[in-house]
């Protein structure tokens, strides 16, 4: 697989404070890459290096196989977390200005802006000043300006902050659409719930260091604990539970005597799920038997806790 961006042992410090400590990442082409970590972990520092706003103290960054250089600026689109527009400037004029700064010609920018403004149905905002727009409206303009020059790599830092759920969905769909068209996307956030549905790859940054990275599905497989959630239809739930406890590790059991519903978690240690199912089926009808896959949030918290207890 080709990598759109590779960082090799990138370090950056501000005075005594280390913002990044030997971060090595490989960001595959045409995928959505989640850059995760709590606030202050170093995500923004890394993104600023990729955007050549700052430069690493040591380490190298490769874009599309080449050492990062100023020509790459036009191939990257960046939506910063701290974002805004000139308040007293007109929307259209401002969008044109920002597009031209990215190296687009005026006519090209005008054509593409028309397409996007029509797509978001905001054509009549062109002559409005930014200060007349609501926060969500301004964010839409900001999104357009970020993707307008059709960059190979898009970097979104907390893209959904400032959007209401409906508009957040519109933006999410646009991001997926862009990915479909072949764009590679880095998606930086500390809010894990948005990661699940978007990212194929993730890297977890904590206290200036990368503590985890890889395909999300692989990571989940690695982090799962062979715990299955079981639901059974039975009137003598308590009996079954005490019997099962002799053979398996059971936790979080609950029995609803009125609905005759027994729920519990079962951890498989030695036996296969097939053997277990046979055993369970002999006791009572099974409603559901489901492997518990850890969420990104679970993994996030677990790794950080491990890190805390180890270090």
């Amino acid at each position, binding site marked *: 697989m080709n990598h759109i961006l590779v960082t090799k042992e990138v370090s950056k410090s501000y005075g005594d404070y280390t913002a990044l400590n030997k971060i090595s990442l490989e960001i595959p082409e045409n995928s959505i890459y989640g850059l995760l970590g709590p606030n202050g972990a170093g995500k923004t520092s890394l993104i600023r290096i990729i955007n050549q706003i700052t430069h690493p103290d040591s380490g190298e960054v490769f874009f599309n196989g080449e050492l990062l250089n100023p020509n790459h*600026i036009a191939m990257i689109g*960046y939506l*910063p977390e701290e*974002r805004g527009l000139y308040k007293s400037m007109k929307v259209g004029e401002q969008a044109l*200005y*920002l597009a031209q700064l990215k190296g687009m010609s005026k006519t090209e920018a005008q054509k593409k802006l028309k397409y996007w403004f029509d797509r978001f149905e905001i054509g009549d905002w062109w002559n409005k000043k930014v200060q007349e727009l609501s926060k969500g409206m301004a964010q839409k303009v900001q999104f357009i300006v970020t993707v307008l020059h059709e960059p190979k790599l898009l970097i979104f830092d907390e893209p959904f902050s400032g959007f209401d759920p409906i508009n957040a969905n519109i933006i999410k769909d646009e991001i997926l659409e862009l990915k479909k068209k072949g764009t590679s996307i880095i998606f930086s956030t500390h809010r894990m719930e948005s990661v699940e549905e978007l990212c194929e790859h993730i890297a977890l940054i904590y206290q200036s260091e990368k503590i985890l990275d890889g395909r999300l599905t692989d990571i989940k497989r690695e982090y799962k604990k062979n715990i299955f959630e079981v639901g059974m239809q039975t009137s003598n739930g308590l009996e079954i539970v005490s019997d099962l406890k002799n053979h398996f590790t059971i936790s979080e059991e609950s029995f609803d005597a009125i609905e005759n519903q027994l729920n519990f978690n079962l951890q498989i240690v030695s036996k296969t799920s097939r053997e277990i199912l046979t055993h369970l089926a002999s006791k009572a009808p099974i409603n559901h038997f489901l492997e518990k896959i850890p969420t990104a949030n679970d993994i996030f918290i677990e790794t950080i806790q491990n890190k805390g207890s180890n270090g």
Partner: protein
Amino acid sequence: MDKLLLIIKREYLAKVRNKSFVIMTFLSPLLMVAMVVLIAFLTKLNDSEKQIITVLNESDFFSNEFVTTETTSYINLKDLPLDVAIDSTENMGYYGMLHIPEASNIEDVAIKTFFYTKEAPSTTVLEKLESIFKTRLEQDRLYEIGVSKQQFATIQEPYTMQTATFSGELNVKGFNEIKAFIGGGFGYLIMMFIIIYGGFVMRSVIEEKTSRIIEVIISSVKPFQLMMGKIIGTSLAGITQFAIWIISASILLTAVVFFFDIDPSSFDAANQMGVQAVPAAMPSVGMVNEKIIALGMEVYKIPWVMLISFFIVYFLLGYLIYSSIYAAIGAAVDNETDTQQFVFPVIMPLMLAIYVGFFSVFNNPHGPTAVAFSLFPLTSPIVMLMRLSSGLGEGGVPIWQLVVSILLLIITFIGIVWFAAKIYRIGILMYGKKPSYKELYKWLKY
């Protein structure tokens, strides 16, 4: 380069389209004209108040010495008792009463003479009266030793010393003041421009920080490009403003000249006559008209081309140095109220330059203080211009001083821009707290 032009264009348009810029641009000349009219009016009002002094002369030694002038007029009182004379003077609201009593000789008369006023008299009035007495006494004392009144009158002929430079060029009295005034005007213009437009640069940087657009922009262009684009764009807006002012002010002034029916042809006539005027003939009679002609000639002789070219050089370098500092200050803080502690040390050298200029350069354009301040880069744009109005080379600013001053200015410019760009680069991405000088120093090392 294209990006720099884009930034300059945006900054220029943002400034020029701003409502307060438009209002200031068109209101300021009106205010200026109003000021001129007001000053003229007040001056006239001041002059028109004539001081009237009554004279009760009981002596034979004084008769026709008290001649009414533009500012003072004398009324002779005759055969009145002293207290009545004082009372009536006070009742009429006159300025004062001079009582010259009778005595056997003029010395006694002078000693016994009293000047009565409501309050202590003004020094100008008193000096005028004293000089009348002094002349009269001198005349009398000289008469004692055999100088006739006619001879005394010839002694009274005024005298003005002629001055020339070592190369033999004649100087005109009062001209140095005019030259210094022109230089001072240029210096003052530079100071005002730096303070006003440096402030604009600073506010523009703060605006980009508070609106959070800064990171969007510097992911496309280098911070240095943005900073320079901002400085250049803003200064172009300033130059536009000055151009509009100069044009509209001259239109308005012409209108005022016509309105008050001042005859401008008198200036023209003076200038044409000035061509033949020989400076050597000038001081003898003290004729006002010839003096003006000579001064006009000298003002023509001011090396305007040299002065204006160096005005541009010093203006550009000075403005670039100071506005870079202003940009760095804007980047270091989050809002305008935090700028005070940083702005004050910036304005100080400018103020110092103006004061040194007005007090030291006016008196002695080439004294050690003037030379030092015209070499020191933070004050040289103002002080050197004041000195340059007296000329370059012989009799004026030595060429080596000019070269050193410009070189120092260029070196400082490079140093300051480097330093400001560093602070700017870090500062624009820092939010939330006002940095101390110590932290700014740390940023230089990042």
